[in-house]
């Protein structure tokens, strides 16, 4: 039995309070210590965890059956009261930079039927509640009552039920864990685990090569081939559910759109669907994923990747078609093309800077003189969300097992009251699409809802080219020989998924 595992993570999470900050890296970290009612498995499907089953009693009531015999790290047994406490807790956290109430606010009442049965009542139909609840970790009420985020971070309380107990959390450095021997499920293979925070890519790679850590996430793209060839290492890959696309400005005038000489244009060519289609046709997705991403991408035109609930097989990656693109540009009235600036982040996605430049190359060769600008997320996101950029690269991790979040956030017409289109940087607006989506969001029946999701995606992407889909990232892990990691589409690195061979 192997004893110790050291892992190099590419992020440096700031908390291990599971309800403080809704952030993928923190959630992945917390998954070692805490469990939700329903988890996501390695195939991206819902996995009964602290709940053993759930069903919709009617349009607005869900009932969950809870697992019996689960003990928290502090020795208390898990019951419905802990669920109520854990669902209430996010709203009580004052300083959250990103609150979990997004997932809990649909619930207007919680009914404890018996210690192992609980019902949730929602105001409107909430078909996605089980998916939302994958995001909420359950903590022991007895342990966590009145506990602050700091208490969690300092390890003063033991409120989790996960496979590992906290030993020490050193912000900016590492998280040390020990196996929880009374865990109800499959016990992890490691007595102790240290998750080291190594955001600097070369440093993380070097740490693996020098044996400082045995497992790392996010292998540097250009090293994947080399790592695969290295007999001391094994590489694990999985198509991630991070969907990459270009948002295109649908407004009448767009910043950074010029004629070839650099003079601002009065009309926005991107408004014309033929231009958007032409752009899509100019992009050689295969070269992009093969060369620029070192195969860490799979061309994809669908927010829900194959295998995911809501995947639409009719949405296919646009093949490269320069002649077709030219034709479309001529039809749209831009026989000589035009000038545009393509924006992108420089520190967020796999090879993001290179991807943006490569797309710039491809568009330029197709007659659209493209300038490229990349910047750190810190300035990119605020500018993009103020719609100051117009045309840029974005990625969306489609979590929770179905594609509602991008469909709702990126493509729906911006509507504050309904909470739609919060990230619609394209300013795309289609009544037809909105109608289908809204219908989907309140359809509890799974089959019907899946069909509606597929239709919505088809309208926005296949017909309107509202965004230009590119590819899905491939998530990678590399380990020293002798360790196997089961890769996950949500890119999370979980020590319990690593096993000695």
């Amino acid at each position, binding site marked *: 039995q192997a004893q110790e595992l050291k892992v190099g993570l590419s992020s440096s999470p700031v908390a291990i309070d599971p309800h403080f900050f809704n952030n993928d890296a923190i959630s992945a970290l917390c998954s070692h210590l805490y469990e939700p009612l329903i988890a996501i498995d390695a195939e991206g499907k819902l996995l009964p965890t602290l709940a053993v089953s759930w069903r919709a009693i009617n349009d607005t009531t869900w009932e969950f059956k809870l697992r019996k015999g689960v003990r928290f790290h502090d020795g208390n047994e898990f019951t419905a009261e802990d669920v109520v406490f854990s669902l209430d807790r996010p709203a009580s956290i004052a300083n959250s930079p990103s609150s979990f109430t997004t997932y809990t606010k649909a619930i207007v009442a919680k009914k404890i039927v018996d210690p192992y049965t609980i019902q949730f009542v929602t105001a409107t139909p909430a078909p996605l509640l089980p998916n939302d609840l994958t995001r909420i970790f359950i903590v022991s009420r007895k342990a966590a009552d009145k506990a602050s985020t700091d208490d969690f971070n300092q390890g003063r309380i033991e409120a989790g039920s996960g496979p590992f107990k906290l030993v020490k959390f050193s912000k900016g450095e590492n998280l040390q864990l020990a196996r929880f021997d009374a865990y109800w499920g499959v016990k992890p293979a490691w007595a102790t685990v240290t998750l080291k925070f190594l955001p600097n890519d070369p440093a993380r790679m070097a740490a693996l090569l020098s044996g400082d850590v045995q497992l790392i996430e996010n292998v540097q793209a250009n090293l994947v081939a080399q790592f695969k060839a290295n007999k001391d290492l094994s590489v694990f890959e999985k198509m991630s559910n991070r969907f990459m696309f270009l948002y295109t400005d649908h407004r009448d005038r767009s910043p950074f759109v010029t004629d070839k000489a650099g003079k601002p244009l009065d009309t926005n060519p991107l408004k014309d669907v033929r231009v958007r289609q032409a752009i899509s046709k100019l992009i050689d997705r295969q070269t992009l994923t093969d060369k620029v991403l070192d195969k860490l991408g799979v061309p994809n035109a669908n927010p829900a990747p194959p295998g995911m609930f809501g995947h639409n097989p009719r949405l296919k990656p646009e093949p490269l078609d320069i002649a077709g693109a030219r034709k479309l540009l001529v039809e749209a009235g831009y026989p000589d093309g035009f000038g545009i600036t393509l924006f992108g982040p420089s520190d967020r996605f796999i090879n993001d800077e290179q991807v943006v430049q490569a797309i710039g190359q491809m568009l330029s*060769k197709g007659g659209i003189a493209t300038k490229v600008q990349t910047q750190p997320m810190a300035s990119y996101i605020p500018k993009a969300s103020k719609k100051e950029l117009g045309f840029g690269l974005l990625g969306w991790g489609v979590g929770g097992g179905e594609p509602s979040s991008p469909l709702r956030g990126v493509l729906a017409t911006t509507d504050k009251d309904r909470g739609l289109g919060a990230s619609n940087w394209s300013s795309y607006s289609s009544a037809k699409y909105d109608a289908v989506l809204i219908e989907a969001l309140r359809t509890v029946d799974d089959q019907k809802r899946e069909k509606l999701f597929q239709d919505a995606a088809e309208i926005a992407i296949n017909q309107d080219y509202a965004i230009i889909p590119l590819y899905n990232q491939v998530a990678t892990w590399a380990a020293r020989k002798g360790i196997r990691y089961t890769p996950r589409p949500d890119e999370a690195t979980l020590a319990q998924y690593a096993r000695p061979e």
Partner: protein
Amino acid sequence: MKILLDAFSPSWVERCALLVLIALLLGALAAPLISPQNPYDLAQLSLSDGRLPPGSAASAGQGVQRYWLGSDDQGRDMLSAILYGLRISLLVGLSSTLLALAFGLSLGLMAGYFGGRLDSLIMRLADIQLSFPAILIALILLAVLGQGVGKIVTALFAVQWAYYARTTRSAALVERRKDYIEAARLLGLSTPRILFRHLLPNCLPPLIVVAALQVAAAISLEATLSFLGIGLPITEPSLGLLIANGFQYLLAGNYWISFFPGIALVLLIVAINLVADRLRDIINPRLQKQ
């Protein structure tokens, strides 16, 4: 005593440094003429030529026959990228230094010559600026200003001017007390004339050395900031940015993407430092008396 002699019989190292510096300067100046490719024109690049090792023949790229120093991930000719990068690095280093020199010099001269309130005001400002390490100020300024050549020049200017103001002031204080300034005043010459014709030329020599060293420091600082990801945009990379970008390929064995720009940067900075050092020896007042 030994230095005294050395200064007059330059060693081969310094002579080499001078030659290297001149070569680099010429290369940077003539970059658009001599480099096989315009690395900033995306249309000239070819992804299929990405990451070719030095000496590879080009398959599709325009203008380039052979990537003598290899190519980067975008199929950019490294030689061209280095020449252009050199240009940007030098542009940033020189222009920020010159701006700061001109500004700091004027303030320092006035502070030193007039003294009093003006002096206190300027010097307190400079003190405040100098009480904070350059990299921090640049870091925060750049975080505020965003990326771009103009912005980094501004940031580097902001961290340098006080240095010159200070140096000039102390030189001006020394010179001002010298009798020739008093003689000029007694001869009824106007203040601007005294400042610029008498004081300035005599305060300049130490500043030139400082400035030469500062150019190197500014280039290095720019490279560092770019490395930290807050200097220049990726599309017009300076040497520092080329290094930073290429570094991830080092482990993969594509050493040339980072290594050659690194060598160029190190050569440039070492050459500037050596030449400036020698310059210092040459205009060292102690040696001048002879």
